[in-house]
């Protein structure tokens, strides 16, 4: 079978499940969060059974997402350390966007964009969780000072904005880099995709495959 049709495994089943679990909960949170944030989006509360249910569910889903995200972050933590190579990429970010990839160090499992996304999300979701607890009526908010609650509310909104923006970029990046979705839906990518986008990672994987 030609190497074109050869597939390279990228994500295990549990990684994929974990990712989509976080993904779906994030979408729900984003929708319910937007509903509570801006009047124009208040109609979204109907997805959750009305205003009160939205307010009730949002924090619980938030906790679930935070926990599952922790699991995912723990797994991907190692791959996302920013290396010298990544910094070089960062310096040529403009060319990449215009598809004029020059000769730059080989990309490992994740390119600089993905790494930035990872760290942004880690920070944002952590902030969301902490500030979320602080403003969580009626359980936790009463035990915090009004000043802290006000800060938390702004932090929560800003972190949410960053997180949603990051996820939009993440979704766009997947659409933009064709055949990427399959990595997270099927767990495998085409060899060409691997060699083109993540040569460093591709070499590693094929070496391991030879030794096995």
């Amino acid at each position, binding site marked *: 079978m030609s*190497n*074109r049709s050869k597939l390279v495994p990228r994500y295990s089943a549990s990684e994929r499940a974990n990712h989509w679990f976080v993904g779906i909960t994030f979408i729900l949170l984003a929708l319910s969060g937007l*509903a*509570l*944030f*801006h*009047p*124009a989006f*208040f109609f979204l*509360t109907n997805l959750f059974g*009305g*205003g*009160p249910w*939205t*307010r*009730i569910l949002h924090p619980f889903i938030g906790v679930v997402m935070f926990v599952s995200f922790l699991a995912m972050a723990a797994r991907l933590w190692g791959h996302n350390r920013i290396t010298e190579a990544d910094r070089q990429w960062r310096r040529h970010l403009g060319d990449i*966007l*215009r*598809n004029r990839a020059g000769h730059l160090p080989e990309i490992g499992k994740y390119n600089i964009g993905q790494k930035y996304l990872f760290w942004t999300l880690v920070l944002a979701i952590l902030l969301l969780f902490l500030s979320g607890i602080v*403003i969580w*009526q*009626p359980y936790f*908010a009463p035990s915090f000072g*009004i000043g802290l*609650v*006000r*800060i938390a*509310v*702004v932090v929560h*909104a*800003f972190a949410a*904005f960053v997180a*949603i*923006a990051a996820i*939009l*970029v993440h*979704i*766009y990046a997947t*659409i*933009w*880099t*064709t*055949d990427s979705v399959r990595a997270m839906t099927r767990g495998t990518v*085409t*060899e*060409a*995709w691997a*060699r*083109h*986008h993540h040569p460093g990672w591709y070499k590693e994987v094929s070496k391991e495959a030879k030794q096995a």
Partner: protein
Amino acid sequence: MALQSLDIERRSATTTPSPSVREPMKVAKLIDISKCIGCKACQAACMEWNDVRDSIGICEGVYDNPMDLSADSWTVMRFSEVEPEPGKLEWLIRKDGCMHCADPGCLKACPSPGAIVQYANGIVDFHEGNCIGCGYCITGCPFNVPRLSKKDNKAYKCTLCSDRVAVGMEPACIKSCPTGALLFGSKDDMTRHAEKRITDLKARGFENAGLYDPKGVGGTHVMYVLQHADKPQLYHGLPKDPQISPLVSLWKGMAKPIMGIGLGLVALAGFFHYVTAGPNEANETEEDEKEEQ
């Protein structure tokens, strides 16, 4: 001044103006602390008229009962024993409750459309039918007034008896006040009356007597006559210069457009990038050549 859908100045989480062509009289409640004997008739009248009964608590070493505003106590008396001048003890007793601000922080913070309504006559009223129980109003209020009920997770506060005012009567607490410390009328009348009270107080040795109608929240429809207007914090923490917290203003003001436009731009940027720069594809031929090298 029948209050109904035609008399709405502002409505929570509603970006378009509400029907407010009518210009009824602006009402106001004046609390003259120099006449207040802290008898709590206003608390009793409020509970009785609104058919709410707070729980019977305990004595915590002070006369304040209940100790704090709650979903069942929309007004409470706060007692402070102070000695502004050494040796001259004063017992300042302040009727705490919603100030009915002209620029209400609760309404600004509330995410649920129509949960908080400001009528054209100045009354800020909670419409618990639309309340989702998020507690944002608590975050928004500069005077820490709204309270969430444990029973139904709705927010409650003094309504300035909008139902009585709607049929032309005065609020229950004001009618009941034995010493005339509480007065109701147009905001102008109340301000003029306050001026007379302040001259009387100045004559009795309170040089700093004054009216508490904080401009930080656009003036309030509940005003105090204070013997020590220069030190409102003497009155059990009445804020010196209350205003909606800049954080809340940011959160409910600037943040909305930024967020709305920001996300919109990101999404559009992605779309236009795709249609202009095209997909980022790994085409086979290029891979084969590299393979061979």
